[in-house]
């Protein structure tokens, strides 16, 4: 493959990597922050000292959750629903004779995309 290795092109590459990294960090940060908060001591959290890693490391909120009977009941119901709906929808989708078809002009990948769109 012919590659353009001029200075401008390389600068563009680095800039692109920087922007993309930044965007993926914004995707990741709230989740990491949440994890850090869940593992920190309440005092540190309300004081606003927790950002990326936990401070005053403790499992207390998880231990509290373990004692909560309601949590396990609701969790059980969620799992139950997922299992039942998966089995039922799998069954009915298999039985249903028509399938989502796309008369695509060019490629097979489009068909696959539209399949995703229909099922979602």
């Amino acid at each position, binding site marked *: 493959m012919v590659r353009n290795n001029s200075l401008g092109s390389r600068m563009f590459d680095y800039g692109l990597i920087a922007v993309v990294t930044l965007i993926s960090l914004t*995707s990741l940060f709230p*989740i990491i922050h949440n994890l850090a908060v869940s593992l920190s001591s309440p005092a540190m959290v309300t004081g606003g000292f927790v950002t990326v890693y936990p401070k005053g490391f403790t499992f207390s909120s998880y231990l509290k959750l373990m004692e909560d009977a309601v949590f396990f009941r609701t969790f059980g119901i969620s799992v139950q629903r997922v299992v039942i709906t998966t089995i039922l929808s799998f069954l009915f989708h298999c039985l249903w004779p028509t399938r989502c078809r796309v008369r695509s002009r060019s490629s097979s990948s489009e068909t696959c995309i539209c399949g*995703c769109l229909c099922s979602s």
Partner: protein
Amino acid sequence: MARKWSEQLHFNLMLLPGIILVLLFSVWPMSGVILAFKKFIPTKGIWGSDWVGFENYEMLFATPVAGQVFFNTVVIALMKMVAGFFVPIIFALMLNELRIHWFKRTVQTIVYLPHFLSWVLIAGIVRDIFGLEGIVNQFLTRMFGMEAIMFLGEHFWFRTILIGTDVWKEFGFGTIIYLAALTAVNPALYEAAEIDGATRMQKLRYITLPGIATTVVLVGTLSLQGVLNAGFDQIFNLYNTLVYDSSDIIDTYVYRAGLQEGRFEVATAIGLMKSAISFILIVISYTLASRFAGYRIF
């Protein structure tokens, strides 16, 4: 062509469970829409209540709330549609320009992550981050000495957050759709263009964009049907009385007016109107999609 009934019997039997399911859970409950034209009295039930014609609608249009709610829904949904349309395209094009393969894959996976979280969870995270004592306000007050901003209590900021978090959550999914479309572009075209001395922008303009044009049109036209769905899950989990004026949408209003205040006939009337408009929009978007992108279900 026509086969005998007995030959088709097993096919029809296979179809039966699905049809029963649809009749039971989709078609039969729809009969409840007659409530939109009745005055609901719980002791008389849905069928026994008295007909009132269009009285519910007259009452609805007489209140200023209805217009506001309708306006909010369309505005929020349109802004989400526009932002959610362009961001994935731009991001997919950016990823497509990356030359390091593992990096591209990793980024793709990371931005796809929020799509799997439910709005209940994300609402918790958003409250954590944008709340009065959240990390953003801590940062603003400490670094810039600014006053804490009530992100979730001011009309402008609340709408911004609604659209921002929606785009944040879903753009990874859209990106994957476009990246899948990009894999279908023949690499030989790029090589030929490079040998001919095409610049990056020229390759983008003449190879990549035409390559994903069909998918772009398809996704765009299909998103049109969502113009009255501004996202109940998200708004219901985030809003509060302070921002009702700017962010109370049809769905949340129906929930409060219908289920909490017990005015089931009004809620049904709004719901029916919304379904009717949505139905028209779905037909329009499907027609457009089949005409411009060759998309057909039947």
